[in-house]
C-alpha cells in the first residue's frame, strides 16, 4: 500500500517531466519535419521530402544579408558585453561596498525588462543623443551593437559570478606565494577559473543578441536588416517551408554550439 503510493506518485512526477519536455520539443520537432516537406503549402500528409527549401534560403537576399548583419552585431555585442560584464562581476563577487548588492540586481535588469520597453528606451535615448550631439547614432552599426550589448551583460554577470563562487581565494594566494605577481595570478588562476563561466556567457550572450527582434526593430538602419527581421518580413507575405528551414538552421547552429561548449565546460554546472 505504502509502496503503491510511492510508485504512483513517482510515475506522476516522471509523467510530468516527459510531458513538459514534449511540450517544449513538439513544436521544434514539427518545424524541423516541415522544413523537409516537398509541397509549397505545408499540409498533411507530406507529398514527399526535399532539401530545396534550404537551398531557397541562400537565394533570398534578405536572409543572407540579415544573417551576416546578425552575426556581426552578435559578435561585437558579445565582445563588448564581456569586456564590461567580466570586470564588473569580478568586483561585485569579491568586494562588498555601498550598493554592491543593489548593483548586482540592477545588472540583471535587461533580462527582466520587456524587450519592447528596453528597445523604446534605447531608441529615445539614441534619438536625443543624436539631437544633442549631432552625431549619427540612431541607425548606426554602433548604436545597434550598443543596444545588443545590453542583452549580453546580464548573462555575463550571472555566469561569471556563479563560476567565481567555486574559486577558493586561497588558490590566488598560493599562486603569489609560488612567485606569481598579481597580474600573472589573475591571468593564470582567476581568469582560468572563470573561463567556463565566460565561455558560457559568450554563448548565451551571443544567442540572445543573434535572436533578438525587439531591439533590432527599433535600432536598425533603414534599408538594413537582421535575420529575425528578415524572417518576420518574409512571413508577412508568404508561408512556405523556407521559413521552417531557416528556423531549423538556427536551432541546429545553437544546438551545435551548446554541445561543443558543453564538451568544453559543463553548462549544467554554471547555468
Amino acid at each position, binding site marked *: 500500500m505504502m509502496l503503491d503510493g510511492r510508485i504512483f506518485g513517482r510515475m506522476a512526477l516522471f509523467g510530468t517531466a516527459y510531458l513538459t519536455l514534449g511540450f517544449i520539443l513538439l513544436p521544434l520537432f514539427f518545424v524541423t519535419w516541415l522544413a523537409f516537406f516537398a509541397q509549397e503549402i505545408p499540409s498533411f500528409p507530406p507529398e514527399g521530402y526535399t532539401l530545396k527549401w534550404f537551398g531557397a534560403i541562400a537565394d533570398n537576399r534578405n536572409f543572407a544579408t540579415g544573417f551576416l548583419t546578425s552575426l556581426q552585431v552578435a559578435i561585437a555585442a558579445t565582445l563588448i558585453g564581456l569586456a564590461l560584464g567580466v570586470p564588473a562581476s569580478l568586483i561585485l563577487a569579491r568586494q562588498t561596498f555601498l550598493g554592491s548588492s543593489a548593483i548586482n540586481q540592477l545588472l540583471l535588469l535587461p533580462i527582466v525588462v520587456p524587450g519592447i520597453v528596453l528597445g523604446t528606451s534605447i531608441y529615445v535615448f539614441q534619438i536625443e543623443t543624436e539631437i544633442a550631439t549631432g552625431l549619427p547614432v540612431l541607425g548606426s552599426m554602433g548604436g545597434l551593437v550598443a543596444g545588443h550589448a545590453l542583452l549580453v551583460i546580464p548573462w555575463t554577470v550571472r555566469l561569471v559570478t556563479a563560476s567565481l563562487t567555486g574559486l577558493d581565494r586561497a588558490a590566488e*594566494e*598560493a599562486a*603569489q606565494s*609560488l*612567485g606569481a*605577481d598579481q597580474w*600573472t595570478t589573475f591571468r*593564470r*588562476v582567476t581568469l*582560468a577559473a572563470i573561463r567556463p563561466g565566460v565561455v558560457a556567457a559568450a554563448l548565451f550572450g551571443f544567442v540572445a543578441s543573434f535572436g533578438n527582434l525587439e531591439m533590432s526593430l527599433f535600432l536598425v538602419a533603414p534599408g538594413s536588416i537582421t535575420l529575425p527581421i528578415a524572417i518576420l518580413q518574409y512571413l508577412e507575405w508568404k508561408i512556405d517551408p523556407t521559413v521552417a528551414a531557416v528556423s531549423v538552421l538556427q536551432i541546429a547552429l545553437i544546438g551545435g554550439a551548446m554541445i561543443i561548449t558543453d564538451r568544453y565546460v559543463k553548462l549544467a554546472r554554471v547555468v
Partner: protein
Amino acid sequence: MASLTLDRLTKRYGDTTVVRDVSLDVRDGEFLVLLGPSGCGKTTTLRMIAGFVPPSEGSIRIGERPVTDLPPWKRNAGLVFQSYALFPHMTVAENVAFGLEMRKAEKAEIEPRVREALRLVRLDGYGDRYPRQLSGGQQQRVALARALAIRPDVLLLDEPLSNLDAKLRLEVRLEIRALQQQLGLTTVMVTHDQEEALTMADRLVVMSDGEVRQIGSQADLYETPTDLFVANFVGRSTMIAGTIYAPGAFRSEGGLELTCPPGPVTGLATMSLRPERLTIGPDAARLDNHMRGSVAFVSYLGGLLDVHVRLNDRDQVVVQIPNRGDVFVPAIGDQVEVGWPAAACLVFPRETN
C-alpha cells in the same frame, strides 16, 4: 633553507591590535608550531611572514634577507593552506610545476623536479590527474609537493590538517613531520590542535590575544607553564581555587590545606594539577598532599580511566589511571584516598577575568 627571524612584529587594524610585539627566532631546519585558540593572532602572524598582511610595526628576516617590504611573490616561502588551495584547472603535475615556471626554469629542469616532489609525497604516477580526482589527503600532499618544489627558504603550514578526517590526519601528520626532518625544512605551522602541535613540533609558541604567552619544548610547556592560560591550554588540568597564605602553603576555597613548592605567588591563586600525577588508593597516603574523597564519576576510555573524585563541596579533582589489568578501579560513590606530591602542584596568581 634558512632561519627566520621576527622582530617585534605588530599588526593593528584601526584601534584593534591583533598581533602585539611578536619576536621569534626559527632556527634553520626547525619545526616551530604556533599554537593558540582561534583569534589569538597566530594566523595573522603567519600571513605577515608570507607577505599577505603588511605589519604595522616590526620586521621579518628570512636568513639574512630582510623581507618585511617584499610582496609575497618575492619571499620564496612555501605555503600550504587548510583548504589545499590547488589550482582546479591544472593537473597535479601542472600544479607542482607552477612555482618552477614562475622562476623561469627550463622545461628540461622542471620535469624531473616535479617528479621528485611527487615522489617525496608518495604520489608518483598521479601527475596527470586533476585535483578533484584525488582524496583530501592526496590533495593536501599535492599542495605540499607544490610548496616543496620551489625549494622554499621557509615552509609555512596554515592548519594543514584541519580538513582531513581523524585517521587521515594522523597519517599526513606523520608524513609531513618525516619529510620535514628528512629535508631539514625550516617550518612554521599554525594550529589550534594541541595534540597535533605536541606530536609534530621541535618547539612551540603558545599565543593568546595577539601575544606570545610561552615559547618552549613540549616538556617546557607541559611541566613548567608560565601562566594559567598555558597550563590550561596545553594538556588537561584540574583547577583548584584558593589562597597562598605562606610560602608553599595553599588553602583551597573548600578548606583543603595543601603543600606546594614555595614560589613567588601570594594571595589569591589557582592550583593546576595534571590528572596523571595524582594517585588513588592506599599508596596516596605517602604523598605530600593526601585526603579522602568520594568517587563522583568514572569514565572508561580504553587504555585510560578517568576517575572524578569529589573532595568537598567546592573541590573536585580528576585522576587519570592507566587501565592495567592489576589496577584498582573504584566504583561511583566509593570513599577513596587521593594524593599527589607537592612537586605536582603548579600555582599561578588568580586571573581576574
